């Protein structure tokens, strides 16, 4: 069996938790995480991968990223626009910050994120594909309009998405571990492996 991983910059280093987990699970590792990505891009990347591959042999690991990222394609470059970045080469992009209140309405971005996760869960379920999800740095923003969707999410296959402290970055911070250390990689990989076995996923 092979582990295929989708996620952000916290999931792509050669010595991060992804290859560590694959090793612990005795699987080959295919890391399709990206340095600069959004939850919507993770959603489309998984969809494309499922359409292109015989999935019988794959275990899918998904690390959802911050919802405060919007995909832009400008002058042949695909990148994410984020409220906390001010160093875009094109000044037109930097000028959009004036409208971040419109581009990143918390009520709406939380609905989008939960829609992607629920959709991917159901889609993978429809193909009998084994998977596990976690958040790399943020938690869902809870409000009435997402309550029913959250109830529909299979929490045996998604580590506590409502709790900020359950995201990988916060979990490691609580343990005083920098996210990119070998010890962190082992700690988070062991944590995920325990969840995967507890959920009887494999």
């Amino acid at each position, binding site marked *: 069996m092979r582990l295929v991983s989708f996620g952000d910059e916290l999931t792509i280093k050669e010595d991060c938790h992804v290859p560590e987990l694959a090793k612990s699970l005795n699987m080959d590792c295919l890391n399709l995480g990206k340095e600069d990505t959004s939850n*919507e891009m993770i*959603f*489309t990347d998984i*969809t*494309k991968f499922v*359409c*292109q591959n015989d999935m019988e042999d794959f275990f899918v690991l998904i690390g959802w990223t911050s919802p405060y990222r919007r*995909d*832009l*394609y*400008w002058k042949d470059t*695909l990148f994410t626009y984020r409220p906390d970045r001010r160093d875009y080469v094109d000044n*037109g*992009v930097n*000028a*959009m910050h*004036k*409208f971040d*209140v*419109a*581009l990143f*309405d918390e*009520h*709406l971005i939380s*609905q*989008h994120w939960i*829609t992607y996760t*629920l*959709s*991917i869960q*159901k*889609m993978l*379920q*429809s*193909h009998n594909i084994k998977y596990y999800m976690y958040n790399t740095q943020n938690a869902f923003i809870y409000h009435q*309009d997402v309550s*029913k*969707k959250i*109830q*529909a999410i299979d929490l045996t296959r998604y580590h506590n998405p409502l709790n900020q402290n359950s995201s990988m970055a916060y979990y490691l911070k609580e343990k005083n571990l920098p996210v990119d250390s070998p010890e962190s990689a082992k700690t988070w990989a062991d944590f995920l492996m325990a969840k995967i076995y507890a959920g009887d996923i494999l």
Partner: protein
Amino acid sequence: MRYLVAFGCSHTNGSMLDGVNAASEWNVRNGFPGMLAKKYDRELINISMPGGSNQYIFRSVLKYMHHYMDDDDDHMFLINWTGTTRFELRYPNQLDHLYFSKGDFKDEKTIPFSMGIKASLFTWKPAAELLRFGPYLFDVDLLSNKWASYAYNLQQILGLHNIPYLMSNTCDGMTRTDYNSPIIDNLCPKHYPHADDTEECLVTWLLKQGIEKTKCWHFREDGHKLWAGKLDGFIQELGYDK
């Protein structure tokens, strides 16, 4: 109860159906979704929105399934995808601004944000001014990749839940890219005929049939009747008429 649940943009909302109103309760109930609901003896739930984006349609289908749908009822979904260069924004909860439209299960804070929409339609300055950044925000290929993913995921989910459905296009065909071609190739063509063919979308097809459009690119009752007939052919091919 037996329901036909329609998702889409202004065409599904029946804009200008009566030749007068961009939005009215009569238009919402009597356009092509209403005609099909009547034919199949189903009550119409119309969740469409003028200016609604494919992102809005995708989110609305999942929201309806998890917030409003009673599994004991008999549902048929009519998902009418819209133009590519659109997405959704939302007026902040703490402000009084609303975007009114007719239809069912409305979140009147949702802002339909599309290339070419009049800035005067927005009562909130940040949304109106953001339109100037259209070239950054509306990349057709990128939005088409997302649209293909929305459609594929919904097909799998509706299949998983055994919900009968038909998808069609109203404004554009899905633009093929290197990225989304494998996704489009995996769409079920019986449930989503002509996904990437603009000639077969509602607007282009009705014009080809000689139906007159309104000044704002919508259609009156004759156009809706013809489109309902075309969709009905697909519904019969799927065996949903039995």
